[in-house]
């Protein structure tokens, strides 16, 4: 039923989608609701009531950050495999890439979910601490787990900002983080000495960069308000609650 919302024009969805989905979640939809929703979508195309407002250029910045971050991440790992001689020079771009990813995250969402974000940061911090203990299976699990949790969390929040739906976000997370890690890391560890031009590096790392490129493209095209553009009243109650 929620997929039917995609039948509505983009301007309508930008304005009404969230509350419309909230409405559908509050009661089991009937066949009549389904027909009525399709009819409403046809009407919204024929008689548009919501008009798309052009995004100011500042709204494209988060998307551009995400796009550049994804491109840099991908370039570093491609270089690592195909031009290993230049790889360590480019490796310094990874921290910059992570910084740009962080800057593209939705500040309003993070402020509204401050408690969850704090817990997530705490978990990541704990993983870092455990990963630095004397070597054991636990330190490996904590290291890889913390790494995946941090990268997966950032990608998910950027996808939320790009208004990518929950099911697509999960697909993105599985394809870009969970599956590459599940395949890439064990193989890499099994090989023992991971050589610089090993294709498994690409299996493990490239999907993440490509996912950021896709999310960044969508975010740049659609635009997203920055914290400075948002009314403070929409943020403060949530901040106080958390």
């Amino acid at each position: 039923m929620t997929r039917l919302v995609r039948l509505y024009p983009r301007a309508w969805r930008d304005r009404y989608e969230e509350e419309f989905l909230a409405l559908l979640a509050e009661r089991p939809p009937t066949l009549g609701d389904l027909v009525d929703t399709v009819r409403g979508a046809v009407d919204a195309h024929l008689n548009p009531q919501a008009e798309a407002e052009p995004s100011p250029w500042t709204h494209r910045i988060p998307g551009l950050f995400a796009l550049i971050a994804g491109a840099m991440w991908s370039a570093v790992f491609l270089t690592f495999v195909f031009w290993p001689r230049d790889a360590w020079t480019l490796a310094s771009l990874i921290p910059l890439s992570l910084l740009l990813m962080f800057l593209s995250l939705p500040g309003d969402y993070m402020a509204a979910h401050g408690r969850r974000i704090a817990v997530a940061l705490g978990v990541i911090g704990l993983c870092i601490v455990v990963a630095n203990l004397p070597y054991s299976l636990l330190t490996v699990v904590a290291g890889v787990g913390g790494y995946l949790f941090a990268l997966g969390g950032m990608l998910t929040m950027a996808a939320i900002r790009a208004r990518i739906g929950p099911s697509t976000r999960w697909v993105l997370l599985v394809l870009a983080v969970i599956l590459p890690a599940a395949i890439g890391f064990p193989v890499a560890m099994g090989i023992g000495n991971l050589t610089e031009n090993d294709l498994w590096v690409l299996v493990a790392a490239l999907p993440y960069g490509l996912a950021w490129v896709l999310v960044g493209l969508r975010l740049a095209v659609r635009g997203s308000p920055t914290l400075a553009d948002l009314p403070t009243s929409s943020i403060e109650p949530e901040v106080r609650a958390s």
Partner: protein
Amino acid sequence: MNQPFGELGRFAEPSLYILVSLSGGPKHGYAIMTDVEEISGSPMGPGTLYGALARLERRGLIEALEPEDRRRPYRLTGLGATTVRAQLDSLGGFVRTGLSRLDGKIGG
């Protein structure tokens, strides 16, 4: 039917129900839907509800408030209150005329 309602086409009747519902105070989509069902005795589909809400908002008869979680409440504007009052007065006159004629015919 007066001007704002006349141009709403098939959304005129749902719009009137929504305005009457919001006369009791701000409500979000689901609350409007259940209230309208109570008032009218028949359910209003989500497509019709949001088709009418979009039209009413565009005409300045209702306004959206800050969202509460994912739900956004709506409230009647001054213009909306005037419009719904005029519409109900008009319908009241129509009902009274109809009833008096019916009574006269039955009585005669």
